[in-house]
């Protein structure tokens, strides 16, 4: 069952054009937890002086990781959409490094999934953290 969910989650992200455009990769997904990453790319720079990636790239990665965590959750029956998302940017991502987002769907009700996520570059300290509410589809009678 969990392997089926994981496969579904992989298909979920593989079919998303924007995730492909940002070269996102699923590193790990299992039962409400997902780890996704993307490479450093000069086209994603937000600060030309330092070469630091744009916050929007980190937002897109966090959002996708969180959505993947939702669809991989045992209580989720189908797709999902973001209702609300808050991102805190703690520090600039180091230029040249891969960005990895780890998301956890920690609570699912009949209609809403609650998710948190953290983004890292190749260092120890987090780059950004996120909290969000997502739709739960197909489970409501």
């Amino acid at each position, binding site marked *: 069952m969990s392997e089926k969910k994981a496969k579904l989650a992989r298909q979920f992200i593989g079919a998303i054009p924007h995730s492909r455009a940002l070269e996102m990769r699923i590193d790990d997904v299992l039962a409400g937890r997902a780890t996704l990453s993307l490479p450093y790319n000069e086209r994603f720079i937000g600060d030309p002086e330092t070469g630091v990636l744009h*916050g929007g790239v980190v937002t897109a990665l966090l959002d996708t990781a969180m959505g993947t965590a939702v669809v991989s959750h045992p209580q989720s029956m189908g797709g999902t959409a973001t209702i609300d*998302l808050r991102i805190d940017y703690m520090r600039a991502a180091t230029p040249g490094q891969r960005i990895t987002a780890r998301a956890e769907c920690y609570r699912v009700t009949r209609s809403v999934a609650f998710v948190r996520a953290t983004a890292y570059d190749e260092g120890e300290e987090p780059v950004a953290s996120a909290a969000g509410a997502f739709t739960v589809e197909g489970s409501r009678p």
Partner: protein
Amino acid sequence: MKQPEPVQVIKQRRDAALAQLVDDIPYNQFLGVVFERRGDELTATLPYNEALVGNPILPALHGGAVGAFLEIAAQIELAWSIYWPQFEAGATGPRAMPKTIDFTIDYLRSGLPRDAYARAVVNRSGRRYASVHVEAWQDNRQKLFAQATGHFLMPRQEG
């Protein structure tokens, strides 16, 4: 008495300053975000393209792309308001951008596969911090499909 500047000179100077602010940032160009200006009022446009889709079945725009678009609209509006007096005084060249501290996005309806527009308002701009609200719509200005509020760290300014 000093003659006012010819209108074309003013327009050209303002448009050039805005273009530099926006196009200096590679990610703005990657997403395809463009800005229209009327006086000092800005409207951001995210022209639709397939690479922005997050749900190919509906289809709907990716929440991350929408969030990034709103963040760009908010950041450029804030920078524009900070540097407007300098641009009006004839200053040119690259400018340090405000940095996002946090950004909260409210997804009101799914983004349709067509162009999206956004306008931001600087609600508070202090010496160190600023708070910016941004609204986005598609076909109907009255029906927002997303809105966001973000806090920014003001760029250090010489002098």
